[in-house]
């Protein structure tokens, strides 16, 4: 069924069913990915999908239902679902259908740069990347993945208060994971690059950087347990910030699930720490002019010079002052709170200078087990790690088979310096996390 006809029929059915106010949230995706191996296609995936989430106020509560099928049967299911689910809700949260703002920001995205790219061109780029990877070093044996991908995503919110907004964005990207081998020992590394334009994804450079990392970290071994001065390299720093970004959620504060609840205005981090949520970032993968409730987005510091300025809010968590951070992790997900382009502000020294300042310590370049060994509620983490040993300002050797343990809130306070090398991690559908490398005065390491 045509989208416009579907919306008309759905809205009419909702009105007739006694739903006072309602809203349809659509997501449409066009995704492509190819993975190559030994000069041949290993995996190839292409898709067109769309889904709708319908929500409405019934008997004073908000009910939600979603569907990937958009036919007459779906309309009935969505309307009945909204009614039935609304009747189950018991919280006194005032959820509202928002009428919209008048001045949404304009974020320029040239979708044609992505939609015009033919599948063959993407396959060729993946093949070029594999070739570059193999040629980068004779110790490269194969890859654990060598892929090129693209995605075009559009969201639209239409509601009974007259709001009708949409935003379309698209990215291309490449990922590569070379496996290297020497004297029977294997090692690997992973790297990726995403952009809005294929010319910004240099597959050769990416392949060479990944191989370099795999070679440099070969023949790693453990180090004695103890407390070490540590640099979290930018990619690892972003992973860390991403995993713990939920501690800045006003929704979690409301539920008592973050220790930052009610601590706005307090120093929660070292003075050199500033963390910004910037939905309007020109180069941001999570940029958006409106949030999942249709509220206009804006840029704000969440932590400024160590002080907690605000938590992130939606209309549901703070009806007076949403920060425009209502978010949906997929069309069918309930409206939650999440950051957009969220990053630790860079300092002014280079990573090399930072390494030179360390007499005795480690640089962490890989963390494992983030989904199990990090607890957002307590802030505690205990994670498998890899990296490099630093002695007298120089990298001495690669390290593996260690864990690093600590508490995120303590880490924030122990940051002593921040480098200038801000880098964004692989974006999720709604959030893009970035960080420069940072140093902490000590971290507990378990090893030998």
């Amino acid at each position, binding site marked *: 069924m045509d989208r416009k006809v579907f919306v008309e029929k759905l809205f009419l059915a909702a009105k007739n069913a006694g739903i006072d106010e309602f809203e349809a949230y659509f997501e449409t995706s066009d995704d492509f990915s190819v993975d190559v191996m030994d000069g041949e*296609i290993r995996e190839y995936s292409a*898709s067109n999908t769309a889904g709708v989430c319908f929500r409405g106020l019934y008997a004073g509560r908000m009910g939600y239902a*979603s569907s990937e*099928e958009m036919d007459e049967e779906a309309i009935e299911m969505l309307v009945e679902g909204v009614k039935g689910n609304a009747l*189950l809700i*018991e919280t006194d949260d005032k959820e509202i259908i928002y009428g919209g703002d008048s001045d949404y920001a304009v974020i320029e995205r040239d979708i044609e740069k992505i939609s015009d790219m033919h599948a063959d061109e993407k396959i060729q780029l993946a093949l070029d990347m594999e070739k570059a990877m193999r040629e980068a070093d004779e110790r490269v044996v194969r890859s654990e993945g060598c892929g090129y991908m693209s995605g075009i995503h559009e969201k639209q919110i239409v509601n009974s208060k007259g709001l009708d907004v949409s935003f379309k964005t698209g990215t291309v990207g490449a990922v590569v994971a070379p496996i290297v081998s020497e004297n029977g020992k294997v*090692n690997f590394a992973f790297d990726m690059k995403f952009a809005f334009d294929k010319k910004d994804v240099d597959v050769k450079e990416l392949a060479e950087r990944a191989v370099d990392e795999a070679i440099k970290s070969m023949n790693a071994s453990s180090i004695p347990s103890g407390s070490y001065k540590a640099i979290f390299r930018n990619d690892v720093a972003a992973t860390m910030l991403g995993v713990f970004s939920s501690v800045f959620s006003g929704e979690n504060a409301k539920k008592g*699930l973050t220790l930052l609840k009610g601590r706005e205005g307090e120093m929660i981090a070292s003075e050199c720490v500033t963390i910004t949520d910037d939905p309007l970032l020109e180069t941001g993968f999570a940029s958006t002019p409106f949030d999942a409730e249709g509220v206009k987005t804006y840029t704000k510091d969440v932590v400024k010079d160590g002080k907690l300025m605000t938590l992130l809010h939606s209309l549901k968590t703070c009806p007076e002052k949403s920060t425009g951070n209502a978010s949906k992790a997929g069309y069918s997900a309930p409206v939650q709170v999440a950051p957009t382009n969220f990053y630790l502000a860079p300092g002014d020294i280079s990573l090399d200078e930072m390494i030179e300042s360390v007499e005795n310590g480690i640089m962490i370049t890989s963390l494992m087990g983030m*989904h199990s*060994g990090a607890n957002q509620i307590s802030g505690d983490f205990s994670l498998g790690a890899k990296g490099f040993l630093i002695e007298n300002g120089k990298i001495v050797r690669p390290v593996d088979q260690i864990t690093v343990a600590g508490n995120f809130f303590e880490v924030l306070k122990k940051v002593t310096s921040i480098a200038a090398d801000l880098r964004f991690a692989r974006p999720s559908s709604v959030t893009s996390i970035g960080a420069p490398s940072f140093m902490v005065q000590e971290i507990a390491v378990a090893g030998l």
Partner: protein
Amino acid sequence: MLKKGDAARALERAVSTGGDFAEIFYEDTRKSRLSQTNAAIDTATTGRIHGAGLRVYKGLNSVYVYTNDTSAEGLLRLSERAAAAIGSEKRSDQKVELVGSIIKNIHDIRELPMDVSGVRRAAVVKDACRAAKSESEEIAQVTGTIFDWEQNVTIANTQGMFVNDRRVYSRLMIRAVASGNGENQTGMESPGAMMGFELFNTRVNVEKAAKAAAKRAITMLHADVCPAGVMPVVIDNGFGGVIFHEACGHSLEATSVAYGNSEFAGKLGQMIASPIVTAIDDGTLANEWGSENIDDEGNPTTKLVLIENGVLKNYMIDRLNARRMNMPVTGSGRRENYTYAPTSRMRNTYIAPGNHDEAEIIASCPDGLYAKVMGGGSVNPLTGEFNFAVGEGYLIKNGKIDRPVRGATLIGKGGEVLKKIDRVGKKMRMAQGMCGSSSGSVPTNVGQPMIRVTDITVGGR
């Protein structure tokens, strides 16, 4: 409903450019989720997942395409997209005759969750939250969530297969947060099964599970941080089986073995574990969380001995990797939904019961760690490096369980740990998890009796 004729035409079109095999995976899923935080229901959602995925092979090349548009025309367009990607030959002699079959249903379902009223489902999470909250005043917050879904699939392929299956899952998740002195600790319990709503008055004692989650949160709130170092570790039954799942199971999936990206590649018939270790991956257990009737490639599910008395017996193999490895499929092809191409995955994976007495395992243990409940973990199959979190741990001192410790992580290499298992207890128990991999997140059981590892690196502070 996928019509045989539509499926046959689409499959014919899919192999019209040189492909030698094609398959359609059609899915219509209803899911619901109901959640309460503290005293009030705050989330109630229902959804319908609907779409089809189509795969074409040409030798070892594979193309996967998917869409929500399952009309006859939509499926033909999907086929054309796949056909254009896999080859450029022009053939018109492809004839696919689909012959339907009825598969054997292993799993009795008494109460289809989608037919159960919201009020009855809400009562379950209410009971859970109340029970957890009443455990102690230190329980500051409780979340109870009931998830259920019903997945209807039709799988058709160019070899003439046309089968339907209906999978029903129910799960309760309880998270308790204990608070004190500016700190929070959590305890989780999340029992589930391939069952309907009857789960909550048969296998699962809702109140008991909720109290267990609350007790764990409180124990951990009063625990010291775990000391770091290398030490013997006793891992209890139930979710302790995650050690095998991560440290070994993933490395036995064809997904990594077929490419040589596993430390166990090429080791069939070799001793890869301690001789007291036998490990099994079984999809045939009635109503178990990781069970099936058929896998997501339409093949009957199986019981597979992975390791027998320390010797590697079998890998878990899906259809595409069976070609690559030149070995038969093992009914292990799984995927989260139609948006993923299937690959080899675990089902209910466990270490079989051994001969050691549980009390003796602790009593004879040198000072170390007792991991009563494990958290999740991950592994890199290439190197076998794994890590996982200990949800509830205690120190072992002088052969006795001593004070609780928190924040422990176990790291190591799968192949090494398997050889260091020196005790396997008698009482096997399984627990439920969602396993994430390249074909999405699928329900899996992990399990084991109590085991002991002679030494393992414990991360702590």
